[in-house]
């Protein structure tokens, strides 16, 4: 058999449903668990952050306007697509240094997490909302609404951590700009390929790879980002980002040392919701 040339995959960014290279043209070397060369990943710049936020803003109206049921279907579809690529994700996770069964368990958990959040899409309004008794002839409802564009600095648990912070944002109708784990960005970009083939509208999720220190401040200070999740930010970097986020009163979710393999609960679902209360006259 003749020797085949290796076909190497180019890992690019995921912005507005497309896979562009970084505007800056930069890339960085990603090593495997033993320190050997694995691949080159795009090193996003602040302009990629800007473009991603623009794409997320553009997608917000359509995505938040979908019925909760439809969002649930799409999230479940993501779980199906991820399940279909199990072997690929197991390989990618093993390359980051995980053992065979640990990698396999993490992919299973990630698939289950999408299913968990897919189920929550049409139930969260009943749990986080309420019908309020008021002293007048009115129906009074409080309903949760997505806050808007959410910046996510993903934790280093390359797949399960990423899914755990990303899924709750899109489940409730928000759109996300994610800065992927800096040492292990490859599973994030492969996840983007799953998202791109799951009927998720372009721009709902935008994934950037690169230096966290470089990208997070631009995301935190961006006036068109409504909330930011600092899950992947080391403790000494949080204060500066919170300060930058104060410029437009962004909602900030501080890192809380989450154990991603545990029960997710609804805390992350409600973190990026705001409550709208409507008064409606009785009998009209």
């Amino acid at each position, binding site marked *: 058999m003749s020797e085949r040339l290796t076909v190497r995959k180019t890992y690019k960014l995921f912005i507005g449903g497309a896979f562009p290279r970084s505007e800056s043209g930069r890339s960085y070397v990603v090593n495997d668990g033993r320190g050997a060369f694995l691949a080159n990943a795009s090193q996003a710049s602040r302009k990629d952050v*800007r473009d991603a936020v623009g794409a997320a*803003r553009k997608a917000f109206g359509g995505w938040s306007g979908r019925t909760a049921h439809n969002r649930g279907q799409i999230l479940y579809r993501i779980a199906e697509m991820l399940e279909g690529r199990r072997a690929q994700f197991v390989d990618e996770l093993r390359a980051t240094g995980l053992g065979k069964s640990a990698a396999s368990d993490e992919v299973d958990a990630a698939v289950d997490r999408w299913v968990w959040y897919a189920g929550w899409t049409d139930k969260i309004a009943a749990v986080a909302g309420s019908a309020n008794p008021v002293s007048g002839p009115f129906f009074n409802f409080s309903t949760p609404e997505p806050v808007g564009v959410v910046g996510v600095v993903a934790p280093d648990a390359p797949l399960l951590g990423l899914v755990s912070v990303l899924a709750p944002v899109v489940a409730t109708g928000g759109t996300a700009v994610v800065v992927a784990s800096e040492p292990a960005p490859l599973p994030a970009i492969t996840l983007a390929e799953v998202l791109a083939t799951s009927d998720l509208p372009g721009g709902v999720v935008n994934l950037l790879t690169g230096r966290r220190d470089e990208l997070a401040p631009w995301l935190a*200070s961006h006036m*068109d980002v409504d909330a930011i999740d600092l899950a992947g930010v080391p403790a000494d970097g949080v204060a500066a980002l919170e300060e*930058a986020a104060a410029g437009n009163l962004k909602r900030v979710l501080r890192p809380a040392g989450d154990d991603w393999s545990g029960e997710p609960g609804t805390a992350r679902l409600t973190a990026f919701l705001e409550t709208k209360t409507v008064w409606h006259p009785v009998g009209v």
Partner: protein
Amino acid sequence: MSTETLPSGPQLRAFLHGLPGVDQVGVDERAARLATRSIKTTAKAQAIDLAITMVDLTTLEGADTPGKVRALCAKGARPDPGDASVPRVAAICVYPDMVETAVAALRGTGIGVASVATAFPSGRAPMEAKLADTRAAVAAGASEIDMVIDRGAFLAGDYRKVHEEIVATKEACGDAHLKVIFETGELVTYDNVRRASWLAMEAGADFIKTSTGKVAPAATLPVTLVMLEAVRDYRAATGRQVGVKPAGGIRTTKDAIKYLVLVNETAGPDWLDPQWFRLGASSLLNDLLMQRRKLTTGVYSGPDYFTLD
């Protein structure tokens, strides 16, 4: 050229078809190459301010109301209410029936009122109607008239008709500046754009303008390059300087700066002035303001902080 010595059809045809042909691939390449210039920091700040002063802030919708026109005029006079250092735009561009509203709203600001005329955007109306349209706009106080050429006549080779229309409209304009719109998206070839440019300049145009904004493709860099070459060569040949206005499809600061580079490298710095170069746009202004605010505050801004218009 005075009206008594109007050239005949065959004379015009001989002249326009005698112009050297445009190297299409070369023009595309040159425009693409110039578009890669990187303009940053202080140069970018200057370019943004220059671009703002060159904007013809435009609203040409069937749904235009006096209120919308007044709002646009207020925006042109003070583009960023939070920052008095932002310069004013060059002109507000409206339909003829809105000229009076715009003139009243802009009194004392020094901003011009440009009015489209001559059965904009198609240009399909009898000559008397086109001239009446123009006179009405001028009488209402328009300082600039944007006329459309008869593309049908131009493409049929009836250059004389196009020439006569421009001459007659120029006369009807009186003191108002005349901008001639070619609708380059309908002229098909760069050779036609070059011919239309020379034809309009010969007929007395003060400005040549790419498009109405109603037809895609509207303004493109290569088309503007061909027109800038024409005004440069025309000034070299006759001594009269003519302005250029790309319009339609210019939406981002990056686009606007590409045009400024093109002007500087093709026609020269003499044209880098709102008197000789304009950008016909509506959504461009918000992007210029967003970029300007990014430069002054250091953080990215969002569309929520600027007016919707």
